[in-house]
């Protein structure tokens, strides 16, 4: 009875196809040029890598429950933390927000039909798959144990694991980043709808512009570095190994010249998401729009000048260290500006606490700790003690997980109604957001203390007096794991049983909310013309708030 009604309703209300129903064959997915379908395929693939990386993380925490190396022998442990890092960084964190949310939303937000180069977009997905498949193949063959940093000469001369295969996978995967970055830049320059000026762009778009700059300027360097590593490992050409005439510090310079900016590839899109969430769920224009926009660009630019702060104790010159430390302090300022502006945006807003907003508020706290502990590590005299310990592990997890992953989950929840047309359970959404917040802090906060006590990272066994803190950390990890698995269940559940979300469930002004949910293949029925500034929530900008209040009033009795 009810289903019949639904079908009739569906026929009446949705005669037009949306991007999900427009073609059901596998071919229609694999050969699609639709940025939204590509984003969905990225979502599934990236989630698989996130899950695998998470399993490795679980194994690490279980091993560290006891001081001795008993659950995993040290050789296995070395592979486990290496593979955790490689999967999480290259195959989850870097593509997560740009390739999923960026792909899906950039054209919608600027009022375009698609990205500027749709075929290139599909190509980038295939390249990602090729790189990922190679790495998975290498893991099944026996894996890799160099650490995700591939420091020479261990990686070039001493490791007997599948360095070349994994290196090739990451090399290939890099081109996926480059193509995505290129595509975003071209799209933002050329595809904006009439009236969508640069300073009317949502800050999510600005953040992606900055990210794309880093992607196309930085990624080639890691490609070259891997190539040089291969030349030495296979061709025995002395580049990094001093026993054949190379310089191991050179490897670190090249590696961090990419990998420090890569940190900003991982965090800038998250900052973009947070700007959206904070402003939209306070229904308040973002405070200091231009400052947030330009601080993204500043971070992208300065991010290229601080790589040496990974090498304060590596034997680089003391004077080089001074310059890098100074610039590191400078790059902290734009991040601080963002945090202050986000906080100020809440002032005199009309704040609701939907699941995405919980993530955004959680991000503020965690990113604050992540950023401030970055100052500890930028202070040279202190970092001599802290570097290569669990302090640094805790710091970058606060930025990468507390920052990027929290922002990513907030973004997924925020745009889920748009992507799927369905509403998930708010109740479970909130429970999971809170579990993640608590579990995360319990996992990683004790690691700051462990680090100051001197526990080195990448240790399969550790002194006994450090066990209690490690038990806290492992306990936290299990809470975090449960929290992270819950969305899989209730989001999956919502696909079939969720309430229809409607085009604009929160009555927000962004262009992506002014089309159907899920959007049609061509995104908008007719080319939108933008006449309002970003983040203006009033009725005068075409938002039918009165109608929405009525809609809600009618919806309440039926639930």
């Amino acid at each position, binding site marked *: 009875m009810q289903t019949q009604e639904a079908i009739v309703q569906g026929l009446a209300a949705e005669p037009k196809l949306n991007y999900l129903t427009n073609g059901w064959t596998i071919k229609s997915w694999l050969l699609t040029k639709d940025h939204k379908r590509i984003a969905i395929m990225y979502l599934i693939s990236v989630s698989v890598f996130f899950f695998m990386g998470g399993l490795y993380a679980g194994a690490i925490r279980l091993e560290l429950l006891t001081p001795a190396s008993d659950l995993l022998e040290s050789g296995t442990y*070395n592979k486990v933390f290496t593979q955790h890092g490689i999967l999480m960084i290259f195959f989850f964190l870097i593509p997560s927000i740009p390739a999923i949310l960026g792909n899906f939303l950039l054209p919608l937000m600027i009022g375009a039909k698609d990205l500027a180069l749709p075929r290139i977009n599909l190509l980038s997905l295939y390249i990602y798959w090729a790189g990922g498949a190679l790495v998975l193949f290498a893991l099944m063959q026996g894996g890799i*144990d160099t*650490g995700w940093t591939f*420091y020479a*000469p*261990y990686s070039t001369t*001493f*490791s007997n694991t599948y360095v070349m295969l994994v290196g090739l996978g990451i090399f290939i995967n890099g081109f996926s980043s480059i193509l995505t970055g290129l595509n975003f830049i071209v799209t933002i320059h050329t595809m904006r709808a009439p009236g969508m000026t640069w300073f009317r762009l949502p800050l999510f778009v600005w953040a992606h512009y900055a990210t794309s700059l880093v992607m196309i300027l930085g990624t080639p360097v890691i490609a070259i570095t891997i190539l040089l590593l291969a030349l030495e490992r296979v061709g025995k050409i002395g580049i990094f190994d*001093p026993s054949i005439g190379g310089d*191991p510090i050179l490897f670190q310079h090249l590696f961090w010249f990419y990998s420090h900016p890569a940190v900003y590839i991982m965090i800038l899109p998250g900052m973009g998401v947070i700007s959206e969430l904070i402003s939209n769920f*306070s*229904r*308040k*224009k973002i*405070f*200091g*729009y*231009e*400052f947030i926009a330009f601080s993204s660009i500043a971070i992208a630019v300065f991010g290229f000048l601080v790589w040496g702060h990974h090498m304060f*104790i*590596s*034997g680089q010159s*003391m004077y080089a260290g*001074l310059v890098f430390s100074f610039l590191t*302090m400078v790059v*902290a*300022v734009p991040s*601080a*500006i963002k945090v*202050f*502006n986000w906080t*100020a945006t*809440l*002032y005199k*807003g*009309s*704040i*609701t606490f939907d699941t995405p907003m919980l993530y955004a*508020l959680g991000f*503020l*706290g965690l990113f*604050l700790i992540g950023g*401030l502990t970055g*100052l500890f590590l930028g202070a040279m*005299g*202190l*970092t*001599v*003690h802290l570097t*290569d310990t669990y302090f640094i592990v805790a710091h970058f997890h606060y930025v990468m997980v507390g920052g990027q992953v929290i922002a990513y989950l907030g973004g997924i929840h925020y745009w889920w109604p748009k992507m799927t047309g369905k509403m998930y359970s708010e109740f479970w959404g909130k429970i999971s957001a809170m579990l993640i917040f608590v579990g995360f802090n319990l996992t990683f906060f004790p690691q700051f203390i462990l680090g*100051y*006590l*001197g526990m080195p990272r*990448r*240790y399969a066994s*550790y002194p006994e007096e450090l066990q209690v803190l490690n038990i806290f950390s492992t306990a936290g990890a299990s809470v975090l794991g449960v929290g992270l698995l819950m969305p899989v269940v209730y989001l999956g559940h919502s696909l079939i049983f969720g309430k229809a979300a409607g085009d604009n469930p929160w009555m927000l002004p962004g262009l992506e909310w002014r089309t159907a949910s899920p959007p049609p293949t061509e995104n908008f029925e007719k080319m939108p013309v933008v006449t309002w500034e970003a983040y*203006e*929530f009033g009725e005068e900008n075409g*938002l039918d708030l009165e109608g929405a*209040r009525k809609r809600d009033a009618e919806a309440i009795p039926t639930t």
Partner: protein
Amino acid sequence: MQNTSWIPLFPEQASTFAWQVDLLYAYLIVVSVAFTIPIVAAVFFFALKYRATEKYATPDEIHGSMVLEVVWSIIPFVISMTIFLGGAVIYYQQFTPPADSMDIYVVGKQWMWKVQHETGQREINELHVPVGRNIKLTMTTEDVLHDFDIPAFRTKADVVPGRYTYMWFNATKPGKYHLFCAEYCGLNHSGMGGWVYVMEQRDFDNWLSGNVSGQTPVEAGKDLFENKLGCASCHSGGPTQRGAKLEGIFNNDVKLVGGDVVKADDNYIRNSILNPASQIVEGYQPIMPTFKGQVTEEQLNSLVSYIKSLTPNATTGTAMAPAANAMAAPAANANNVPAANKPAAKSLANSSK
């Protein structure tokens, strides 16, 4: 790390750096708290005070404030500069060994630390040092990167193949402290470590005399130089010698073919033995063969120590003498560490912990 409390929070302070690093750490914690509390309080306060009372309300717009932006850019910048300066001052000390340091040589190797004292004693995965003396470690590795890390001293340094790196400390408290390898080095990375024993000078002297000392590095180097490797056949013999003059070169400028002037430090001497063609001293022919693969890192250490011990003063007396005995005098410098003959040696492990 002799903490006995259930959850330790701070490592022991056992070197002159420790209180400085801890002070900077405390300063940063204060700064962090001073930023975190107002921001978190503001977030909570705003979130409660301005929570939505009506659905889809449209609060008044506030575009931003130039004054606020400037203020909250400048304040973090100024504070970050104080942190930078504090860090730089400590770092400068950590990586500037005092001239009067006692030298100890360290060679890392998968997965052990080999330590050699100037007086000839050798240790593995242990380091015995006297309290209150400046100790300078000259370190290298036979294979991959390692890192000599003593958390209780708040210092560490990477150990890099193909070159010497240095660290120094002045231990302030007798005891037994963790020694870790902090740079990932493969299979048994977490097992590559041991203990640093800090002892009163008297106990240290006992320890020295209780340990059979082999040749000192300078003696071993002299032996290699004169007999085993035959360096002396070219590098001594006075004005007509074929190889560059080595007496007194240490820490002085050397003029190379092509006009470059370099300082003859440990790395220069080391590199000249392994890659002689890469830096030819002005006035000499590029005839020296490489010794790469023929000397171990420890032998290299000895050779470098010996060459450093050659003073021009000592050679004025002996330069005219036949080559083989030319360098006898300076070797005496080696045993200038006080008193290797004190009362019966107590076992170190007992005396220090």
